[in-house]
């Protein structure tokens, strides 16, 4: 796979504090990478350096498109995009597209098309000053993608949106993912789970875990089974008598996926059916991984 971005030893130091400390990772073409970490872990600082807003203290950032200004190949959406309130959406888009190098008659139609894509098709002639937070977020996405960048950097692209808006924007990002490399920070882990080829976990500026979602998931508990009971006593009895390691928690029993296959489990449960209401496969959620990774000493 072609590499779009290679980062090595990226460090940013502010007054002796390392906000970003020795990051090394690379992004493959047309992949989506989630940058995950608690508040203050250096996500925004990292994205700002990649976008060319901040200069790193040390380390290198290499883009595949050598030679030209890397900023022309990047689309950037800050967490709270700020626009000139006196401009209309279409005026802003034309300015953004023009500054990123789009020229000619196609600019207007490209801007209109992009506004339509983010759901602002009817708001093009309205002043941005009157936009709601959600509309600004959409316009932010539109300005980031209008010049068809090969790398899209998004800082918390959906945190400020309501559930419906979040859904829509995630769908848009998935659609863009087919033709663009995306690196986005988020703390909404359900979203990351949905659209991620690679995870980067940041804590206090350090990259403490990285890899494809599947690998990380296996590393932190993999998948397993959960058996639900109609009362806690039945659950405890089941866990105590089961031939493999089983953990009762209230009226649920969790069994590691490595210990037993589904077939064996079902056979065993068939012999001890008392109180069972539900048997299912569970895979460890990103949220649990997040807690484990972040709280790991």
């Amino acid at each position, binding site marked *: 796979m072609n590499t779009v971005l290679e980062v090595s030893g990226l460090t940013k130091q502010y007054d002796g504090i390392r906000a970003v400390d020795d990051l090394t990772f690379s992004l493959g073409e047309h992949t989506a990478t989630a940058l995950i970490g608690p508040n203050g872990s250096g996500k925004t600082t990292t994205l700002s350096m990649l976008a*060319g*807003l*901040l200069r790193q203290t040390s380390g290198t950032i290499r883009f595949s498109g050598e030679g030209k200004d890397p*900023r022309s190949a990047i689309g950037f959406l800050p967490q709270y995009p*700020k626009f000139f309130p006196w401009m209309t959406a279409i005026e802003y888009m034309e300015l953004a597209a*023009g*500054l*990123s190098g789009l020229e000619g008659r196609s600019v207007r139609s490209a801007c209109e098309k992009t506004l339509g894509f983010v759901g602002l098709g009817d708001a093009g002639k309205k002043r941005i000053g009157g936009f709601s937070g959600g509309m600004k977020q959409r316009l932010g996405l539109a300005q980031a993608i209008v010049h068809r960048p090969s790398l899209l950097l998004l800082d918390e692209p959906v945190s400020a949106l309501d559930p419906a808006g979040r859904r829509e924007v995630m769908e848009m990002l998935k659609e863009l993912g087919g033709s663009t490399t995306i690196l986005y920070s988020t703390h909404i882990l359900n979203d990351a789970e949905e659209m991620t080829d690679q995870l980067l976990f940041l804590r206090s500026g350090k990259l403490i875990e990285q890899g494809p979602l599947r690998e990380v998931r296996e590393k932190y508990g993999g998948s397993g089974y959960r058996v639900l009971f109609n009362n806690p006593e039945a659950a405890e009895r089941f866990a105590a008598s089961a031939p493999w390691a089983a953990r009762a928690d209230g009226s649920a029993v969790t069994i590691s996926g490595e210990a037993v296959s589904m077939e064996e489990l079902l056979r065993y449960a068939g012999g001890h059916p008392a109180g069972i209401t539900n048997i299912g496969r569970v895979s460890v959620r990103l949220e649990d991984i997040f807690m484990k990774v972040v709280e790991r000493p």
Partner: protein
Amino acid sequence: MKQFSLLLGKELREQARSFKLFWVPLVFIFFGALEPLTYHFLPQILESVGNLPEGAEFMLPEMTGADVYASLTGQYQTIGLLVLVLAFMGSLSGERKSGTGTLLYVRPISYSTYYLSKWTAAVLLAFASLWLGYGMAATYIVQLYETVPGFTDVALFLLVMAAWLIFVVTLTLTASAALPTGGAAGAALGILFIGMMIDSLVGTYWTWSPWKLQGYGLMYLTGSPESGDLAGALGVTALITVLLILFGIRQARKNAAKAKV
């Protein structure tokens, strides 16, 4: 060039929509009209508002057109400069603070284009204000006063004033590139007014300084300035202006990192 015209278009549109395009020239026009009218009608004004004792008489000096221009220039040197500095003090710093600049800085713009687009828009507005203001004054002066300076002399005077205003605008924009808005206003106004004070107190010891430009310019209205002094002052002003522009571009680039993300 494409980027320059886009950014200049943005600046001019901003001037129009934030009404700077109207209120800055209006202040100049207002004083341009007020000054000649006030001096012309001063005797009548005193008579109608002043509870002067019976028989009191003022000897008012006979004002010439040149005197009115000089007095108006004094007004512009305080209120005019204040208005220009206030209008442009946030030109760069405001975009950093609000975060609107962030989405410009992540695009492949050059900071010289960015700075110079703002500079051009600001200089255009300053010129428009200057010429509309003095144009308004000239209209009244020609009709109300007996001795008036010739057209060429006034034009030469305005050219010198234009050089001074370019200096003022450049200083303001560079301050805005280097400092937050409040500091920028303080620095620009401080340098302008302290410079004026120094020049009026001990300025006899030198002849080449931006602060002497308006004085030299006014000499065109009554005679002509010492050409060597004027050329020297213009040269020094041009040099400082160019250095300020270069410094401003560097600061704009350096401070882009301070833009709110």
